[in-house]
């Protein structure tokens, strides 16, 4: 088959309107409107985009974590048959750097120096991906290789350590100070301390970084990309291309998972540069190897904790140091440090606190956003400390947590008062009382650690149980003006009222498109909803991160629908020729305009006729404040969400193999908007926490990644995941739309420490780092 292109500038495989027919409103579980396309293989992911005459782009990356670039010679690559362009930093049309949060410290293409392995240096466009790869090999770069700066501790504290980048080596130091820790030390009856480490975790979304740039007649470019936050991409892309934002039209293509890894730019500017340079559409698709270098990872952490308590387990003080290695560029490090500091002791009431959280620059792999960021690392440490304290005081792990649990009205470490319900002690009780899985049935080899590899028949296998609690901030914190925008249009199409919902919010798999349709149905009383592809022809929606889209874009769709509804009411009054205020309390239900006193007034279709009602609204959450740079004080979060996990594991203590038998979660979500999607979020978040607990780590030595493939970087398979039992609570947050709480991240926090606690329970080992490896259990390392 030969494909014939349309000759137009629209890709033949491109995002399209998605119809969401059906009846499910808020609280129901209607099916995903994009589900059918996805199971049929017809959903257009960013790697599926195709347009006539397109070229393939490829990116040459540094093999060295730190080196001076002495010279770059692209002539042989340019002469390679089939090659249309080879570009370097000299060809970046505008600003040479980009970065999150106005840091602008990351080069579009390296100039003069590379600061991490995999840093992009040159771009090639060619007629076939293999041609591009071969041409890339012909680019001659002379490096002066330098000793990589990989010691995060020295980067933080040794002024003599060389600088990784011009900003110095310390990205942020955020202290938190409460009470008088030194005085409390004198009063403590029990003191426990620990040093904990978290390895580098990768988002490992399955859909690789990819997208298509199509040059436009106005000198601009149309970009089809998979991202978490289009408008923030645009703020960085436009200056680097030297174009006004209006000349860059962005459309969200199918996103194959994100988990924070698409918060930063990857191929966006590169593809646009190649397209503008060649005048032809350019597609870039990373392979898995490149993907490991194409996005930031979860910050590795080194954490030192000391708690003092009374004999009965009441914590008197916490003395904490958290060191986060962000790699060469800032990315999300500032916010990761803020979270680690403000949530550094988690949901516990502690009268005297000293926390110092640091984020540093090194030549290790770049780190930034990943599900639960900042809070995940701290949670592993503070929950490990709770277990240590329980042991020291002779308490069980649930009781020690209940004794110190925060609740509505208590203060976070930052002094912020917890304003919404936080029934943590009760949630712990529920987690403990859930039925236990049956004892190990060793007659089926598949139930054992090691499974079908037949490493044991049950000898040396011990069971353990552990608990973990995680507290996560939802939405953007620290004074950021966080908002989302929605445009909703209501009109009659084919005799039926149809709501069209248009936002720039990224559906990354979480089910936002389902929820948008549910909200439109509930607010507008219609069945047919169409979700317009997300693009930048509507206002900013903020990022699909921080578990914020149900809250923020949900809130924006809700308020836009309510504005449309007011328009319908006004029109109804006009059609009925009666003043609006005489119609009583109106609502839109079941396709009708209904008055509380007079019943059904009219069908929505009849009220609308030919009229089109369209409203655009921004939704802002309650403002937050920054953290004081010296004391950390501040009302820095707008919402908090809690998850409690109980893990049951079987451990082969001779071989160090772990089989997670069951994970039970108790989570408070405020309000269940869609149970099916919600459970999927909790399951998926829990799975990523399991990955961090026992499997997942980007192994680095001398600044180089040693396992950039799914052969060597292992994520949980269906054999690794146990059955998951969920208890979902609905204690509404009165400030949030429908009372909801963000739900995607909290389970990622709590499942890791719960699993490690269970392994400790089975083995009696201290286990101070994640992932726990077999050699940590057998003691052979």
């Amino acid at each position, binding site marked *: 088959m030969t494909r014939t292109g349309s000759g137009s500038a629209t890709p033949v495989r491109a995002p399209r309107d998605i119809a969401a027919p059906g009846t499910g409103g808020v609280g129901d579980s209607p099916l995903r409107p994009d589900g059918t396309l996805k*199971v049929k293989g017809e959903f257009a992911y960013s790697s599926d985009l195709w347009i006539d005459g397109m070229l393939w782009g490829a990116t040459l990356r540094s093999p060295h974590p730190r080196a001076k670039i002495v010279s770059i010679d692209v002539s042989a690559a340019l002469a390679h048959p089939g090659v249309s362009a080879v570009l370097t930093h000299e060809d970046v049309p505008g600003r040479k750097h980009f970065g999150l949060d106005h840091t602008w410290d990351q080069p579009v293409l390296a100039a003069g120096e590379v600061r991490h392995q995999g840093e992009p240096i040159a771009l090639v466009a060619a007629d076939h991906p293999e041609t591009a790869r071969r041409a890339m090999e012909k680019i001659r770069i002379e490096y002066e290789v330098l000793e990589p700066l990989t010691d995060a501790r020295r980067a933080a504290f040794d002024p003599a350590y060389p600088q990784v980048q011009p900003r110095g080596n310390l990205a942020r130091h955020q202290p938190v100070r409460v009470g008088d820790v030194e005085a409390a030390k004198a009063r403590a009856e029990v003191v426990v301390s620990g040093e904990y480490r978290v390895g580098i975790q990768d988002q490992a979304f*399955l859909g690789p970084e990819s997208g298509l740039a199509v040059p436009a007649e106005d000198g601009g470019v149309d970009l089809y990309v998979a991202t978490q936050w289009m408008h923030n991409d645009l703020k960085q892309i436009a200056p680097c291309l030297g174009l006004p934002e209006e000349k860059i039209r962005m459309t969200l293509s199918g996103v194959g998972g994100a988990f924070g890894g698409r918060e930063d730019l990857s191929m966006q500017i590169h593809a646009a540069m190649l397209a503008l340079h060649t005048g032809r559409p350019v597609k870039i698709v990373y392979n*898995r190897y490149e993907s490991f270098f194409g996005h930031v990872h979860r910050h590795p952490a080194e954490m030192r904790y000391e708690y003092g308590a009374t004999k009965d387990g009441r914590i008197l003080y916490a003395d904490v140091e958290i060191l986060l290695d962000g790699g060469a560029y800032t990315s999300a490090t500032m916010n990761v440090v803020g979270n680690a500091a403000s949530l550094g002791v988690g949901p516990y009431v502690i009268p005297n606190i000293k926390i110092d959280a640091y984020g540093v620059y090194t030549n290790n792999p770049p780190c930034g956003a990943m599900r639960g960021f900042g809070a995940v690392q701290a949670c592993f440490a503070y929950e490990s400390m709770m277990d240590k304290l329980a042991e020291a005081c002779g308490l069980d792990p649930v009781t020690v947590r209940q004794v110190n649990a925060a609740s509505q009205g208590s203060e976070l470490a930052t002094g912020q008062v917890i304003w919404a319900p936080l029934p943590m002690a009760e949630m712990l009780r529920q987690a403990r009382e859930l039925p236990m899985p049956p004892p190990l049935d060793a007659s089926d080899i598949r139930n054992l650690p090691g499974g*079908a590899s037949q490493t044991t028949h049950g000898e040396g296998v011990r069971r353990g149980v552990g608990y973990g609690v995680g507290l996560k901030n939802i939405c953007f914190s620290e004074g950021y003006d966080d908002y989302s925008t929605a445009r909703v249009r209501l009109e009659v199409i084919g005799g039926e009222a149809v709501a069209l919902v248009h936002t720039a919010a990224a559906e990354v798999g979480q089910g936002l498109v389902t929820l948008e349709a549910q909200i439109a149905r509930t607010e507008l009383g219609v069945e047919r909803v169409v979700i317009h592809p997300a693009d930048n022809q509507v206002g900013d929606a903020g990022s699909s991160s921080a578990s914020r889209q149900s809250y923020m874009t949900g809130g924006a769709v809700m308020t836009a629908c309510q504005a449309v509804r007011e328009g319908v009411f006004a029109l109804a009054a006009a059609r009925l020729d009666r003043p609006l205020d005489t119609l009583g309390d109106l609502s839109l239900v079941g396709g009708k305009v209904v008055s509380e006193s007079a019943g059904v007034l009219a069908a929505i279709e009849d009220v609308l006729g030919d009229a089109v009602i369209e409203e655009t609204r921004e939704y802002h959450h309650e403002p937050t404040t920054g953290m004081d740079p010296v004391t950390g004080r501040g009302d820095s979060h707008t919402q908090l969400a809690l998850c409690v996990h109980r893990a049951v594991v079987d451990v082969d203590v001779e071989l160090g193999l772990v089989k997670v038998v069951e994970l039970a979660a108790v989570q408070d979500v405020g309000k269940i908007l869609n149970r099916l999607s919600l*459970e999927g979020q909790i399951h998926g978040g829990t799975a990523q926490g399991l990955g961090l607990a026992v499997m997942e780590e980007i192994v680095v030595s001398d600044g180089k990644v040693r396992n950039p493939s799914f052969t060597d970087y292992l*994520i949980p*398979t269906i054999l690794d995941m146990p059955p998951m039992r969920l208890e979902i609570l609905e204690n509404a947050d009165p400030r949030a739309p429908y009372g909801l709480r963000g739900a995607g991240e909290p389970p990622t926090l709590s499942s890791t420490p719960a699993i490690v606690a269970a392994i400790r329970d089975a083995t009696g080992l201290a286990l101070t780092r994640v992932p726990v490896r077999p050699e940590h259990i057998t003691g052979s390392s």
Partner: protein
Amino acid sequence: MRVTFTVNGRRETADDVWEGESLLYVLRERVGLPGSKNACEQGECGSCTVYLDGTPVCACLVAAGQVEGREVRTVEGLADGDRLDPVQEAFVECGAVQCGFCTPGLVVQAHDLIERVAEPSDAEIREALAGNLCRCTGYEKILDAVRLAAARKAAS
């Protein structure tokens, strides 16, 4: 090189195929069937799973030349027009689809399982799907979907 094979019941010819190209590349970029996914291209994730002469394979590991004259069935060939295959239907209904990047491969693999095994146990489902990575769902809803599809198939 030229490769001629049957895909989803239709004869396709791809020209100018480079020897190193995989079946996955030919499907996605040369015959307009991008449903099979490219999450790793090294046989580790199962997102590219297709039937080759009735047996599920990772299309990324099959050289294009190897399919000459053979029969391929991809995720695009499972539904009967608008009528989804019961496995596809169950995946949507049970919430087994989030980002959906793993879905095409899982659907083909699960389709094969319930063709072979009438009512697979959980352990059998886990074993059959062990080569298919999913990063979003934690697999619970995928198990639900396969159980449902198998039960419906058994009842029909």
